[in-house]
């Protein structure tokens, strides 16, 4: 019968070889083990041998050509067929047995180190929130509790936060305000639930401040002009620094006064919603600096470029209703802070000055205090400091 003589694989990484030289030609006898051709490989010239006795019938590959492994190089007529026994002759395969070990004694394996279990048992269940989701929630102003309460099982990921933010809106475009509304609502509900608020109000003659402000603004470039709100922020900062009980956090069932005074300034977002990021160290910065930082803050808040620290740093908050709100504002404290100062709009009202009835611009200041930390007397003093400063704006 005729047998194909193929280029053998000679190594793990051999793919082809160059047939360099035929050592036999058609009609020649060939013996098992005898070299039939020489091939060139990456390692050099190697003889390739025939595995059969017989006669060379035909040379298929030409000398000098590159041939892949397995290609037919020649054909050989051979009588020495392989003796392939029938299946019955071969004994059944026996798989070598793995090492068999004696069974372990049941008593042998006891744990030796019994830990002092103060807190044994499983930790309380937490709905898993991925770090990326946490960050996104923070950016959107969604509280962690809100996230944890969302329906569903498994971990909460960024997409879930986006979905939550977009939820509740009718078919139209996603409305992040709703998430914010929910978040604000949750925070305010908690505040009212946990903090025993007391309220004090004080009407303040704003004429001196206005006059001072007009004078100041006329002397500086437009870009450096101050707004009324900044005077208030500064006054509250100085008051908070002087009367420390209004500046800090109520945590772990006690008041922790803060070393610095960071004024949370409530800023309304276009399209609704309110955030209160902090102006840091407001007691140590002059009005000019505060104005710059405040402007920058407003710009960034409205364009969504806040820094996470800014949301949590405030030690007391100041809030106002802008230019078209009510006379008096009764604000709600932002936990864990312990006080909040509110300002109504400045309106002209009848006022008694030195026994005479005059028309004055009046600002209604309110303070809400945490009764666990301060009381009405302290609150009154606090308001008076602010009022005095506003009456003497050159001290700001």
């Amino acid at each position: 019968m005729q047998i194909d003589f193929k280029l053998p694989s000679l190594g793990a990484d051999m793919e082809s070889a160059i047939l360099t030289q035929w050592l036999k030609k058609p009609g020649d006898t060939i013996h098992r083990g005898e070299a039939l051709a020489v091939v060139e490989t990456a390692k050099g010239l190697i003889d390739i041998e025939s595995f059969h006795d017989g006669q060379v019938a035909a040379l298929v590959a030409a000398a000098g050509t590159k041939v892949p492994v397995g290609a037919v190089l020649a054909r050989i007529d051979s009588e020495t067929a392989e003796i392939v026994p029938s299946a019955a002759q071969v004994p059944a395969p026996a798989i070598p047995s793995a090492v068999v070990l004696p069974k372990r004694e049941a008593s042998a394996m006891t744990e030796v180190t019994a830990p002092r279990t103060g807190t044994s048992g499983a930790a309380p269940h937490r709905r898993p929130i991925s770090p990326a989701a946490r960050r996104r929630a923070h950016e959107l102003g969604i509280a962690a509790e809100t996230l944890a309460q969302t329906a569903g099982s498994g971990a909460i990921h960024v997409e879930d936060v986006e979905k939550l933010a977009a939820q509740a809106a009718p078919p139209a475009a996603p409305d992040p305000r709703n998430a914010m509304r929910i978040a604000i609502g949750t925070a305010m509900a908690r505040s009212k639930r946990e903090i025993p608020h007391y309220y004090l109000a004080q009407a303040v003659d704003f004429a001196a401040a206005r006059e001072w402000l007009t004078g100041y603004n006329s002397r500086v470039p437009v870009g450096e002009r101050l707004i009324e709100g900044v005077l208030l922020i500064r006054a509250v900062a100085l008051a908070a620094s002087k009367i420390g009980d209004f500046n800090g956090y109520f945590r772990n069932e006690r008041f922790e006064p803060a070393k610095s005074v960071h004024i949370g300034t409530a800023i309304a977002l276009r399209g609704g919603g309110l955030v209160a990021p902090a102006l840091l160290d407001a007691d140590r910065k002059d009005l000019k600096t505060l104005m710059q930082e405040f402007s920058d803050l407003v710009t960034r808040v409205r364009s969504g470029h806040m820094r996470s620290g800014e949301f949590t740093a405030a030690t007391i908050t100041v809030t106002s209703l802008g230019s078209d709100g009510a006379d008096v504002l009764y604000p709600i404290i932002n936990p864990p802070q312990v006080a909040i100062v509110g300002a109504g709009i400045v309106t002209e009202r009848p006022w008694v000055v030195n026994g005479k009835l005059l028309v004055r611009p009046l600002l209604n200041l309110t303070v809400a205090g945490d009764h666990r930390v301060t009381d009405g007397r302290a609150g009154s003093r606090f308001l008076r400091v602010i009022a005095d400063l506003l009456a003497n704006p050159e001290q700001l």
Partner: protein
Amino acid sequence: MNAEAAASGGTVTNRVTYREAAREAIRAALRADPRVFLMGEDVGRYGGCYAVTKGLLDEFGPERIRDTPLSESAFVGAGIGAALGGMRPIVEIMTVNFSLLALDQILNNAATLCHMSGGQMNVPLVIRMATGAGRQLAAQHSHSLEGWYAHIPGLRIVAPATIDDARWMLSAALACPDPVLLFEHIFLYNLEGPLAAEIGGIDIDRAAVRRPGRDVVLITYGGSLHKCLTAAEHLAAQGVEAEVLDLRTLRPLDDQTIMDSVRRTHRVVVVDEGWRSGSLAAEITTRIVEQAFYELDAPVCRVCTAEVPVPYPQHLEEAALPNPSRILAAVRQVLAHGESP
């Protein structure tokens, strides 16, 4: 020392050193099983480089306590062959630093014979090695390569860090049908403490919580255990309750116990005397990310040896190795993570 008392499950009898406990372990093993013998450099006449085998030559004779020439490859290979041939050898390589001369036997034979033979042969060999740094022994005598060895399938790696483990882990290792590398940190030899008179049995597949905690877990092994316990005492005074987890077995790692600690504390510091890059600490950190990602409140922090061959002068060596103040700094970092400045 409180941790030692708490850790021992049996009745406390006397105070011993870690060295004495290790010696007693060898003595007990030789007495219990005639197949057990010990060989290594200077284990007999000299009494052992760290005096662990002092007196054993007189007690058991030169056939069972064999001094070898300085031929790590040959005597580790001999241990492998003797184990194949029915004995239960304990090979002592003076320190892990010299084990490099026997790496071919350890990796290509001890770890691999079972698999290469399709499970026909097992190698019940125990190799004891001293490891670690801190005595100004300089670069070539200060390696901690147990994390490297823990990379290799076919080996079991254990690191007894307490007196009880020094006494009882050896017998568990000898009972194991597979090759066990047992690492003794050089700083532990002088450690003194109570030793349980008897213990029901030792599981060398489990990590152990040496100090339960709540705010952070310090995951460690070997010579670093006591540094972590010291750090935990400091932290307790500051109101931070640190859990300390002693891995005990480095291969296989006890994932379940590790993840339990992570779930309890949500913040992790891994303390490992190997070099930082590609360390065992890196493996543990990755497993925590794989199995308990959502339990983390902060990224895992590692305290490892600095990326430098261990230097000779004390202040540099101290700065390079893990120590309690570096551990404290890592804990602070992990607790502060994500907080506003």
